[in-house]
């Protein structure tokens, strides 16, 4: 009976557990793109589904240079990300940017910026997939 319980546990949890891991994705696909900058946040990575959105507020200090990365697994398609000030004034969008994943900027004064990400819908997809998205920022020493 014990064996049944263990196997049922594995059946229910292993697929979702396996899918919850974005550490290797962040380590291998995202952090190398921070090259030359020192990472200054903790861990902002999660698997997201088509049509989902999320936001992150970050304080950037005046007099410093930053690189902000929003890297998504290619299975999610063209993930849109924008940066706005606290009042909603848009500062950056990756829509027409050459590099869709990185935004480099200098901060003249300290302020909070809001990073919004939006995963495109996949209405025609027969099978829906979820994929990792990592938001990472770093400062120049």
């Amino acid at each position, binding site marked *: 009976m014990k064996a049944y319980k263990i*196997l*049922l546990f594995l*059946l229910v949890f*292993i*697929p*979702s557990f*396996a899918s*919850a*891991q*974005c*550490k290797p*994705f*962040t*380590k291998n696909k995202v*952090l190398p793109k921070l090259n030359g900058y*020192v*990472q*200054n*946040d*903790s*861990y*902002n*990575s*999660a*698997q997201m*589904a088509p049509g*989902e959105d*999320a*936001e*992150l*507020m*970050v*304080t950037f*200090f*005046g007099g410093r*240079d930053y690189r902000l990365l929003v890297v998504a*697994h*290619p*299975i*999610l398609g063209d993930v849109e990300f924008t940066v706005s*000030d606290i009042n909603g*004034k848009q*500062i*950056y969008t990756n829509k027409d940017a050459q590099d869709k994943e990185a*935004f*480099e*900027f*200098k*901060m*003249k*004064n*300290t*302020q909070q*910026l809001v990073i919004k990400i939006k995963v495109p819908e996949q209405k025609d997809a027969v*099978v*829906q*997939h*979820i*994929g990792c998205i990592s*938001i990472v920022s770093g400062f120049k020493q």
Partner: protein
Amino acid sequence: MIKKYLSLTAIVSVCIGSLALVACGGSENKAENKAPLESGASELTNKDEFFKDREQALKQIFFSIPAPIEMADMIKDAGFNFDKSMLNSVDKVAKYVDEENRAINLGIYAADLSYSTVFEQKQESVNYLAASKTLASALGIEAAMDEKFMERVQKNQNNKDSLLSYVTLSYQNVNAYLKEGKRTDVSALIVSGAWIETLYLSTQYAGKKGEKAMKQRVAEQTYSLDQLVSYLNLFATSDRVNHMKEDLTRLQAIYKDVIVVKGETSVEKDNSGVTSIGSTETVTMSDATLAKIAAETVVIRNKYIQ
């Protein structure tokens, strides 16, 4: 007996099939999307489970206040010297026996580790990394800083850039293991501990006569403090998080005396195409407010490090 064996075999088959589905999904999609599923993507098999309390889950994951390494870097930028006497001794590591204290002091050690590393204090860095590893293991996340990781740190301790990247990676790993293990409240305590220690170190320098740069940085922590308290509100059912929230709320009351004058954001590009973001917003505080913030920070820190 045979019946039992057959049922067991059936369950094993379904299990293997289920795992294979995840793995096979990868190779199928590789062809279609040129994106291997095994690395960071999978089929959405259980929608109910995935979308359950989704908004709350995403809010708990996507949270950021500057990591301790940045404030340590700003202390160095301001021209100050390393002062070992300000740090929480690694000898206390065995005293932290419950999860709440372990998590908060792991954050405190992470801040001391960042500070030591930025000031290129190799031996101190190794000591604080070892103390952090002890607490990480006690919290059940030893994989965040395993033996291989520690060996690599030892080997590269003379390379400042490598050491810096190991320090930031260790902080990220600890939070990653906790967030992915659905122990986000523990991660919140670590981040809080790191923030308190960073503020403590900053106020010690900011309090020096005539010092302006660090005083300004301490005032600007009003943003991070508000964010941190809002974040802790997401864990309202956790007593240990509520203890920290009560402490930070007292500090927040003092921070109300920091004067923030709202302004307009400006965006321009320089000749090399790099975006410059400015603002007319100002953040200022009096020496008396700084003194109150410094005193309250000491009270909170002392409560947890003893």
